């Protein structure tokens, strides 16, 4: 079927054409199945073991494929696509090194519960286990970092496996699923049959909540005087932002959102306290420390949130709403567990929810917010990184989709970007993967061609996947690539300053490339700012430019992220840092 033919066909016509029981190769089965599952774009990189698949793509006009410059770029792009849409992201890599290059990206997606289907080629079944050229046991390697994985030895199994993979990746607690396809399987031909549905006996996620537990929670809320909601990525992934808003309004409970929970609740709301944890706000951390009722919603009580577990929320009765039963009681002792889809739990709770006795508590929190806001010592001589993020937030009215890399700039985005819409904070929270920020933005922009996509990176992380600048240029993917350039591995520097007594060990990034020239070398517009005035000017220029642009913000080197709770301290033991 040619592109021209497809243009005049309706969706149903395309579907019925795809479903025809033609005798086709495993490769074509894969491509048809991906289309039937609604895949819009594959991020991939060819190689020997996937040649059959790429050959099938050559005459298969319906699939959009983006050739990245590294498999790691491909999987992070698929991840950004998935996080920003809620749909399953698809990545394709060859065997051996192609497959091992996606391992970091799979682990990143697994830690943050991102739905991906990762296709890898493998050597032919007769060669498996012989240490053949470009052979790697990728199903063995990825067992601990996938929700499930498959090695498909018979082409007859392929349609079912693909259907199962999409179902498993996108339901319950979402996550990456890998399908390894040996080269003979992608060549072998059979009559195509795609199942309407699949039943996996060992996989029945609990989505419907137990009403008794929900009612216990409602009762606990009525009695609470100092309640807090800790809302996480689960709210965003369940598209439960409206239900959460209703719940907060009805119960009058102050709310803090984790790094992955940011954008799941509007930052302009008076009951919002910002992010908690290691670099959380004073008001959020003190609220967690002093609350009598803590409701965790789609959050997994990560150590960067709780800090010293034995000192965490010592006076609180804990309610935990989560789709994954294994999260209940894993880190904190839970009084009221609510296992189920976050959206369904909140919907059910909202039917009978009543306000807590939280009036005095809300006033106390409001005083804390006023007295200890997030702040930084601004300067007229130097460009401060916080100033840049603040400026980006102001000029975009919190409306952009922002991806970040990992480190200080990530925390400043979390602190100073005022998110207004769900799925607009795209960041590697669990694994903390440097090199994620920029390629993930490519996937976000592919999924949202009409939205403003900003990728904020440090000068360290930018160099971990900068090769994907080529993709932005070639496809005119208009990501605004921000480099917060302090010539140093800032977060490591901060720890070495505060915890290791100024013993700065291998953190100097001086001698990195000129980022403007680097961008230009790839055909991407490059801009630079070294002071506030230039920053305003070039940022305006970047926003008005119709295409990809990299902005090198050269900022002060010695800036630290505050507040800070050091490892081993309880969450209220904050270093507050610089004053105005």
């Amino acid at each position: 079927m040619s592109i021209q033919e497809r243009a005049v066909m309706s969706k149903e016509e395309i579907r019925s054409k795809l479903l025809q029981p033609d005798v086709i190769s495993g490769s074509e089965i894969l491509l048809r199945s991906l289309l039937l599952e609604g895949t819009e774009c594959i991020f991939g990189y060819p190689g020997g073991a996937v040649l059959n698949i790429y050959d099938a793509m050559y005459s298969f006009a319906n699939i959009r494929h983006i050739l990245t410059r590294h498999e790691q770029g491909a999987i992070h792009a698929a991840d950004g696509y998935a996080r920003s849409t809620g749909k399953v992201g698809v990545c394709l890599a060859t065997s051996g090194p192609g497959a091992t290059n996606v391992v970091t990206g799979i682990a990143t997606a697994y830690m943050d519960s991102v739905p991906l289907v990762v296709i890898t080629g493998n050597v032919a079944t007769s060669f498996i286990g012989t240490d053949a050229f470009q052979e790697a046991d990728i199903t063995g390697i990825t067992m601990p970092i996938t929700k499930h994985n498959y090695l498909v030895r018979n082409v007859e199994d392929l349609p079912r496996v693909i259907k199962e993979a999409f179902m498993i990746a996108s339901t319950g607690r979402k996550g990456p699923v890998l399908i390894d396809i040996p080269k003979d399987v992608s060549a072998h031909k059979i009559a195509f049959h795609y199942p309407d549905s699949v039943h996996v006996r060992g996989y029945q996620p609990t989505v419907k909540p137990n009403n008794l537990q929900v009612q216990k929670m409602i009762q606990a809320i009525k009695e609470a005087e100092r309640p807090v909601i800790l809302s996480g990525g689960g709210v965003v992934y369940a598209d439960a932002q409206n239900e959460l808003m209703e719940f907060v309004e009805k119960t009058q409970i102050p709310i803090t959102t984790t790094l992955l929970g940011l954008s799941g609740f509007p930052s302009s709301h008076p009951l919002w306290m910002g992010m908690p944890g290691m670099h959380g706000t004073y008001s959020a951390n003190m609220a967690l420390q002093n609350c009598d009722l803590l409701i965790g919603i789609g959050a997994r009580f990560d150590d960067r949130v709780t800090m010293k577990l034995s000192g965490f929320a010592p006076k609180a009765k804990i309610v935990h709403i989560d789709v994954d039963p294994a999260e209940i009681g894993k880190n904190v002792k839970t009084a009221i567990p609510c296992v189920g889809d976050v959206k369904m739990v909140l919907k059910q709770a909202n039917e009978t929810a009543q306000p807590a006795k939280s009036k005095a508590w809300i006033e106390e929190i409001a005083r804390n917010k006023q007295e200890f806001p997030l702040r930084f010592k601004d300067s007229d001589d130097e460009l401060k990184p916080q100033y840049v993020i603040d400026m980006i937030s102001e000029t975009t009215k919190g409306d952009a989709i922002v991806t970040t890399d990992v480190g200080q700039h990530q925390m400043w985005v979390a602190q100073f970007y005022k998110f207004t819409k769900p799925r607009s904070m795209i960041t590697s929270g669990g694994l903390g993967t440097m090199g994620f920020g920029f390629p993930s933005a490519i996937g976000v922009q592919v999924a949202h061609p009409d939205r403003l996509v900003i990728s904020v990176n440090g000068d360290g992380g930018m160099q971990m996947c900068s090769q994907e600048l080529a993709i932005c240029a070639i496809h005119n993917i208009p990501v605004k690539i921000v480099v917060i350039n302090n010539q140093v591995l800032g977060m490591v520097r901060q720890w070495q300053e505060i915890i290791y007594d100024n013993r700065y060990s291998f953190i100097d990034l001086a001698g990195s490339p000129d980022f403007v020239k680097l961008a230009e070398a790839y055909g991407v517009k490059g801009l630079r700012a070294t002071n506030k005035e230039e920053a305003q000017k070039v940022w305006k220029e970047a926003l008005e430019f119709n295409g990809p642009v990299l902005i090198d913000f050269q900022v002060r080197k010695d800036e630290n992220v505050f507040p800070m709770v050091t490892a081993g301290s309880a969450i209220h033991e904050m270093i507050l840092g610089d004053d105005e």
Partner: protein
Amino acid sequence: MTNPKQTISVLVNNQPGVLQRVAGLFGRRGYNIESITVGESEEHGLSRMVIETTGDHNTLEQIQKQLYKLIDVIKVIDLGSQAMVGRELALIKVNAEPTTRPEIIGIVETFRAAIVDISPTTLIVQVVGDSDKIDAMVELFRPYGIRELTRTGVTAMVRGMSVGK
């Protein structure tokens, strides 16, 4: 205080790699495996694993929940919380000179074990029972000299009419 021994029964899809999935989960989450036995179950396509582990109540609960996250795991049962039959088989190759042989045969008969192989200077004794019984027997044989010892690990099921499904 040492952690109590726990016995769990895990019904799994009989798929390549399923043992690796289960054993890998124990390894990466820091759970101990004292013994593991795997074999076919009553249902075609499913295998049953019986795993002996150590840990307190919370650890056991986490193990069960984490096991359920594996797609190939169908059912997990905490056998230790119920009345169960647990059995292990051991083969013991023990030194048996003509002078000591009658004593050894006496021990074998007392434990209702069996001699399954005889050589001029050794016997292979097969014993079935709970782990304590096998431990006891091994201790009794030690003075004669144990040449080789192999144990299967515990396999187990719940007593009575209920089934592990």
